[in-house]
């Protein structure tokens, strides 16, 4: 049973299109994240939600809009896709609000976005 699952695993699309990536975690965690990994494998945080509330919003173009319908789901919608958006997008979760916060993040397998 996959702990953090994201769909789709691959997206290939044209510039200017809109696309969405969905993420679900069954770990009961209170915090979810989107990370972007570029072609050089550099991992950078984009957004974080704690119990459906946006708590981290890094410098990301407003074409990217996260949505968390509940604490087990975090989706990412991208408008007007550009070539530079090509990357692997990872969803992750952690349990932040607990007495012994370990800091461990649990990642999904990633969604590889290719913009042509």
């Amino acid at each position, binding site marked *: 049973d996959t702990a*953090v699952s994201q769909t789709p695993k691959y997206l290939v699309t044209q510039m200017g299109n809109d696309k969405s990536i969905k993420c679900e975690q069954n770990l009961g965690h209170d*915090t979810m*994240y989107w990370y972007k990994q570029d072609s*050089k*494998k*550099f*991992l*950078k*945080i984009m957004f*974080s939600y*704690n119990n459906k509330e946006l*708590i*981290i919003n890094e410098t990301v173009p407003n074409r990217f809009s996260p949505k968390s319908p509940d604490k087990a789901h975090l989706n990412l919608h991208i408008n007007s896709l550009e070539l530079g958006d090509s990357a692997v997008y*990872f969803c*992750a979760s*952690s349990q*932040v609000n607990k007495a012994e*916060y*370990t*800091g*461990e*993040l*649990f*990642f*999904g*397998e*990633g969604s590889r976005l290719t913009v042509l």
Partner: protein
Amino acid sequence: QQQVKQSPQSLIVQKGGISIINCAYENTAFDYFPWYQQFPGKGPALLIAIRPDVSEKKEGRFTISFNKSAKQFSLHIMDSQPGDSATYFCAPLGSSNTGKLIFGQGTTLQVKP
């Protein structure tokens, strides 16, 4: 804003050898020092982590060494195996960071049989 510097960028080791990856940080508020391992096509996964109250932690063939005064920690892989070939990331964290990990640049390890 370069808070975390990881080296080397890539590493090739013979099977049975020792792999050493280093991570230097600036933020003295960090109090959790993990290493993540990422295989191709997969997400990163926690490999081993240390708190600053100890200078070394060993789990099987993997050891973290922590030097608080130098603001550095390193990952040692003893008896490296081809199955260890992966990308390794350090991602130090402070307990007030609400999970905002800042990852090092990554080290791609190749263990040759």
